[in-house]
């Protein structure tokens, strides 16, 4: 937050759809956000919100078919990644933008040593020789806090614990000093004490390397402790975009409020959890208006008819909800009139 606000990544109106036998699933349905140099942006949402598809879309790693980025732009240092050739993209992946995934157990190739999998990326992007790349891989392993890295580098993934595998993934992702690191649920599969180690590690390395991080998670606690800003996603759309601290003290969107109230808190005694009624709509059959309207206690007629835009309501806060628009009061009057008649 202290850094100069220099935009490194800007996503505008991104659409990623999946074309299947059951119909078109609008997994990511028009999202926009910016990422500044060195900052951490959290993207939170429940399953089916489109947060993981968003992260894969950024590096154009959507399995195609059936997936396809159908619209929008992804500006990385001012250039649109969607306009680049596959060859140009390869030079960016793992080099300028890299990624770590949720399942450290399955994300490493079982038949190659940890060192080889890191060295491979170094050889590829930094054009180093075999020996130099290996030594650098060992250095990276030491940097991510793996004890006796020379020995561990030669081991295959099945010989490493879950926490260590995720460290290897981080070493691999940061080996080429990327400007952006996308971490897709990096600690979800890990135990809490290991999660704490990994989050601490990501924070430290981020500071040392000046990397901007996009952290995809479903855990609001993780967002609070690691992120500068946060985007809340619901059913393929961004419903709120604000400062990470702000979202806990001053949430705006009814979905965000509902999510926070549903969370069993470690720091509070709650007799009853306030819940959001109903379930997420099917991605094949989205409501015509605001996708949260069917579950929203405040919904009015306009919410079912038109999709609200993501609009600024403060210097750091954007929200996509009719409640915060001038139309809301008008709508109230109109509804009252209808009621009277």
């Amino acid at each position, binding site marked *: 937050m202290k850094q100069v606000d220099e935009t490194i990544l800007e996503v505008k109106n991104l659409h990623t759809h999946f074309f299947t036998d059951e119909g078109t699933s609008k997994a990511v349905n028009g999202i926009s956000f910016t990422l500044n140099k060195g900052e951490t942006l959290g993207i939170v949402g429940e399953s089916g919100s489109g947060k993981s598809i968003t992260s894969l879309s950024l590096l154009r790693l959507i399995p195609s078919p059936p997936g396809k980025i159908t619209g929008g732009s992804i500006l990385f240092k001012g250039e649109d990644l969607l306009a680049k050739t596959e060859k140009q993209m390869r030079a960016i992946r793992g080099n300028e933008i890299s990624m770590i995934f949720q399942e450290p157990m399955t994300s490493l190739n079982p038949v190659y040593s940890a060192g080889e999998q890191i060295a491979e990326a170094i050889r590829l992007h930094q054009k180093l020789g075999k020996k130099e790349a290996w030594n650098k891989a060992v250095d990276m392993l030491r940097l991510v806090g793996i004890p006796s890295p020379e020995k561990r580098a030669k081991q295959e993934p099945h010989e490493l614990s879950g926490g260590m595998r995720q460290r290897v993934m981080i070493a691999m992702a940061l080996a080429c000093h990327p400007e952006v690191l996308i971490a897709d649920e990096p600690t979800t599969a890990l135990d*809490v004490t290991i999660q704490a180690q990994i989050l601490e590690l990501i924070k430290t390395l981020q500071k040392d390397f000046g990397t901007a991080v996009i952290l995809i998670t479903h855990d*609001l*606690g993780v967002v609070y402790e690691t992120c500068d800003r946060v985007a809340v996603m619901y059913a393929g759309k961004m419903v709120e975009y604000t400062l990470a601290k702000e979202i806990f003290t001053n949430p705006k969107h009814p979905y965000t409020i509902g999510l926070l109230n549903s969370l*069993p808190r470690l*720091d509070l005694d709650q007799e009853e959890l306030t819940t959001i009624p109903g379930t997420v709509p099917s991605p094949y059959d989205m409501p015509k208006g605001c996708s949260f309207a069917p579950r929203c206690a405040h919904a009015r007629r306009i919410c079912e008819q038109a999709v609200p835009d993501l609009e600024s309501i403060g210097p750091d806060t954007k929200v996509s909800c009719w409640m915060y628009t001038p139309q809301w009061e008008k709508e109230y009057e109109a509804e009252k009139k209808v009621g009277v008649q």
Partner: protein
Amino acid sequence: MGAAVEGKKVLLKVDQLKQYFPIKGGFFGRTVNHVKAVDDISFHIYQGETLSIVGESGCGKSTTGRAILRLDEPTSGHIHFQGKDLLSLGRKEMRSTRKDLQVIFQDPFASLNPRQTIGQILGEALAIQNVVPKGHRRSRIEELLGHVGLRPEALDRYPHEFSGGQRQRIGIARALAVDPKLIICDEAVSALDVSIQAQVLNLLKTLQRQFELTFLFISHDLGVVRHISDRVMVMYLGKIVEIADKKSIFEQPQHPYTRALLSAIPVPNPVQERERILLTGDVPSPIDPPGGCRFHTRCPFVMDICKTKAPELKRSTQNHQVACHIVS
């Protein structure tokens, strides 16, 4: 809550339970070693309470649940349930006792037969224990669905037609079907999204009041545990490190492991500043656990005695038991 518990009746008492799984290997496939999944633990559950077992993977919390249900045959120990030792029961007696002991698993889909309708699944549960006469089963099933917040139409539908949260409700209905006394919830809400998890947690609490159920709640999520429990038991590498009522375990945790565990969880609270104990390294292997206190390899407050002598679980205050040399 602690005081109220005092006068209560003990429903289940676990005594010196051990669960060792053999490891085969070597030249002739002999048993070369054991995974000491649960290593000599004793605790009890009061009637009508929720006791939670928390801990990280490999601590033995799920193994304990499975041992109580005799899904795995324990190596040694006693499990007293309503005056009977479950481990000495014959097959037939155990089957009739299972009626009182039900379980809800993490993945409801895996435990529901995809080819059976919800009506058949619940009907089967009723038929096996034969608690409701045949003619009344359908109305009993509809009643059960009502209890868990599902409509009677669900009866003729198949598991794949339901969402994760609804399937977990079906799992709960199946457990409720036979009027059990104790329900073991093994990571029952862990796979659910926060908003759905909250619905299911509320449901469990309501049902507990309504039917005077006792829960053994196994979970790795301490937020959930704080919400649902009366008492909490913390396990590490097959041993109990701390048992206490909810209030004291969350507000005055005594064992260094419990404190580290609590401090490791990110909490969205700008007011509460917390000391963080960052543990180093991984959990050691349960095949060859460290001697002395099993936590001593990662403990920030380790003393010489910890490396040689295993601490016993001792009462530190009225409702609080800890196994740690520093505390005693």
